């Protein structure tokens, strides 16, 4: 890291010094002070173009080599596999195009740098060439669009097939709440106008709705592995966005409207913690945190890997710390946990 920075700074300083000396020389000799590029400028900048091309390639490979490990780990949801697949294919295509065009651009800039007596080719048009580079993007993009839309339609098709678990995600400045349908797996009606803080009806559930009584309201999201989850999302104040990057899932929450997203978790939290890449990541991060702890800095407790729900739409001062832990567990563990939770009815009864 430090070495990398040093190299960059050295290169920049070298360029600066080289150019500064040139300015100095020019101001002494007072020849060719036209401020229009001459053959020497063309040659030098032509070489720098090649250097710059190498820099682009280098930063690409460096980033991939160095930062590949900080990227999101394998997806913990069913559709996430298709998502990652599509991302990979798109990336491969983009890198081919990027490598080709950047090479041509910078190589031509070097190869055809101006020289006295060199004649440019008067070449204004070529219908065939232009047809070729119109049709190639058309075909490539058509393929990407079709593939993308196929995946999109599958992901966004929120339906009730396969007995999905119904969960409400509720956003407010600056925390999350989750609500389960309870035994009947049906959410009771709710509206912000029914919120009664004094009686801790914080989500505004309609007490007269028979479906509401068995609803379970929690501050930590538990999901059974392998079962589809249909999220119904609601916000009480401003726009929030429920972002679950490890599941490749995101949907905005808007006051006055219910939005939906659906996915099937495929890996439990416990299984995830045993994956080699996660073990590595946790080790790496705990090392950083231990260093912080040694200096007495905050946010330095040892960390265990967890799935997480983040807010990803600017929502005010503490937007940066609006999160909820997600725990994916086996069906039995989930049922056991669920049985321990208080229902809405119980909560209301205890505050009467």
């Amino acid at each position, binding site marked *: 890291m430090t070495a990398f920075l040093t190299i960059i700074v050295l290169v920049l300083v070298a360029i600066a010094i080289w150019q500064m000396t040139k300015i100095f020389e020019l101001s002494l000799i007072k020849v060719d002070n036209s401020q229009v590029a001459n053959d020497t400028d063309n040659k030098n900048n032509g070489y720098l173009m090649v250097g710059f091309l190498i820099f682009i390639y280098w930063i690409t490979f460096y980033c991939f080599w160095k930062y590949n490990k900080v990227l999101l780990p394998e997806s913990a949801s069913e559709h996430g596999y298709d998502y990652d697949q599509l991302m990979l294919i798109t990336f491969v295509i983009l890198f081919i195009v990027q490598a080709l065009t950047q090479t041509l651009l910078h190589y031509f800039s070097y190869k055809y740098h101006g020289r006295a007596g060199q004649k440019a080719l008067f070449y204004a048009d070529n219908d065939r060439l232009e047809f070729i580079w119109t049709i190639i993007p058309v075909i490539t993009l058509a393929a990407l669009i079709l593939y993308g839309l196929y995946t999109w339609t599958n992901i966004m098709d929120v339906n009730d097939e396969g007995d999905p678990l119904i969960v409400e995600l509720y956003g407010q400045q600056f925390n999350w709440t989750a609500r389960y349908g309870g035994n009947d797996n049906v959410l009771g009606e709710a509206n912000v106008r029914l919120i009664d803080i004094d009686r801790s009806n914080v989500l505004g559930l309609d007490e007269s709705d028979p479906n509401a009584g068995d609803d379970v309201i929690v501050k930590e999201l538990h999901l059974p592995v392998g079962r589809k989850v249909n999220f119904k999302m609601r916000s009480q104040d*401003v726009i929030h*966005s429920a*972002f679950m990057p490890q599941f490749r899932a995101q949907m905005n929450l808007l006051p*006055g409207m219910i939005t939906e997203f659906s996915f099937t978790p495929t890996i439990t939290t416990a299984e995830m913690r045993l994956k080699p890449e996660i073990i590595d990541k946790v080790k790496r991060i705990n090392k950083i945190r231990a260093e912080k702890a040694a200096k007495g800095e905050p946010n330095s407790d040892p960390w265990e890997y967890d799935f997480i729900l983040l807010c990803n739409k600017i*929502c005010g001062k503490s937007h940066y710390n609006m999160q909820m832990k997600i725990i994916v567990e086996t069906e039995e563990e989930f049922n056991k946990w669920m049985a321990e939770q208080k229902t809405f009815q119980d909560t209301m009864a205890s505050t009467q």
Partner: protein
Amino acid sequence: MSATAQAHVEDHADDHGHHHEQTFITKYIFSQDHKMISKQYMLTGLIMAIIGITMSMLFRMQLAWPGESFTIFEALLGKWAPDGVMDAEAYLALVTIHGTIMVFFVLTAGLSGTFSNLLIPLQIGARDMASPFLNMVAYWLFFLSSIIMVSSLFLEAGPAAAGWTIYPPLSALPMAQPGSGMGMTLWLISMAIFIASSLMGSLNFIVTTINLRTKGMSMTRLPLTVWAFMITAIVGVVSFPVLFSAVLLLIMDRSFGTSFFLSDIFIQGEVLHHDGGSPVLFEHLFWFLGHPEVYIVILPAMGIVSEILATNARKPIFGYRAMIASLLAIAFLSTIVWGHHMFISGMNPFLGSVFTFTTLLIAIPSAVKAFNWITTIWKGNLQLNPAMLFSIGMVSTFITGGLTGIIMGDSTLDINIHDTYFIIAHFHLVMGISAAYGALAGVYHWFPKMFGRMMNKNLGYVHFWITAVCSYGVFYPMHFVGLAGVPRRYYENTAFPMFDDLTNLQILITVFALVAGIAQLIFLYNFFHSIFYGKKAEANPWHATTLEWTTPVEHLHGNWPGEIPHVYRWPYDYSKTDENGEYIIPGQDFIPQTVPLQEDEEEMLH
């Protein structure tokens, strides 16, 4: 108004002398001369850019070293940085105003305002804009809106802080955020005035281009700059009024209790009366401008780059007609892709499919442009002036940033990178840096025309290379931050241990950003020093063919001392040879547009 208001196309014999005396005020302040107005736009844009870029350096420091105390924070932010530690509200205010200033005040008004004003009349052979008075009013409205926007920084409760997209309800409710009080009111007033200014300017550009072209200047003999400016103006006229309606409705919701965008809100212990509104409606209205806006920013840069590449490659632009067609296609498509900002907004997923389709279509004309630019420099005789370097740099960043647009524009892939640092990296490269390169290329290229002096080329080279390395250094690694799942507009990422291993990367990005920011001082020095002490320019220093270089170096009202030049050919007759391989004009590799076709010379069928 003054005699300059009558710029006659057919006014050939008139020497257009102005016998009235210009006072300081009519010449430098309330000027109606398009060249002076262009300089006014440039200077205002430059000052706004300094403010906007400084802000970005401040919040980059906060991201790299969260919670650290800096004297400079205390000095610049005052009570917003108690003991030199930036406040979370201040962070949001900084990113909001940075976005607003850079998008609207620098890259829209600063770029279009400067170069459309300077080049449209000069390159089409007109004595001034169709309405110089309206042009003057447009500038002063822009100036007024800049003043209001900057003054909002000094409010007790702080400026607008809801992000530059100001989505309600956050922007509508002062209890949701202090910046949504007076700060947001000023933001909305400033933008309303800005839109009025932009409309006046744009209408003027369109009318001037259509009506005031000199004899022989057919639409297919227009330089690509003018085409780009005109199409930009049309896109602005189509889309800016929609932003105005969004702003107006938001003002109503905020101040008069209406419910266009608000419904079912419970905040700070009470239910608000608003009912039946939809924040999604605001998003539609906002992005109906918001998306065309990024093309309003990039199209002029494309025009400028096309012109500079051809001139400095000493070659005609490749595929002149395809370049115009792709400009038109991009402009048209830009107005029907806004929904790609809203894939996960709660909008019907089917609409998402439609917008994915139109969005990926826009890659086709963009690809055509990139390939045509590359072919333009193929087998050229490249004069690597600073303007040329910035133009090549623009093609490079436009490709790099544009390619990741294919990821963002795909509704599926957008799900997990929406609102992360990936989008920040994408749009800064494709529109921020690219448009800035276009603007800088324009400044280096037309500086001799604007100020009659040359900028120092060596300082230009140093400026370019540091900027080029740092731009990639900032935004290339930033894609990885986004792919790691880090959301944008986070004051710090320390609340999430999973992002702890990105700290080094954040520092790297910030170091590049700081170096890039400081390197712009080289440009500022070069710019202001050259205005007064630069080498005196010749009339046509770059040996270009277009009409602006046929005017005298000293500015005069009406542009040409004698009659307006006639045009006989397209603007890209560089290195044109006869059958024997000799230049048409012996010893000169360019043929100005004012030179009639020579005997036996074939006119390009463009």
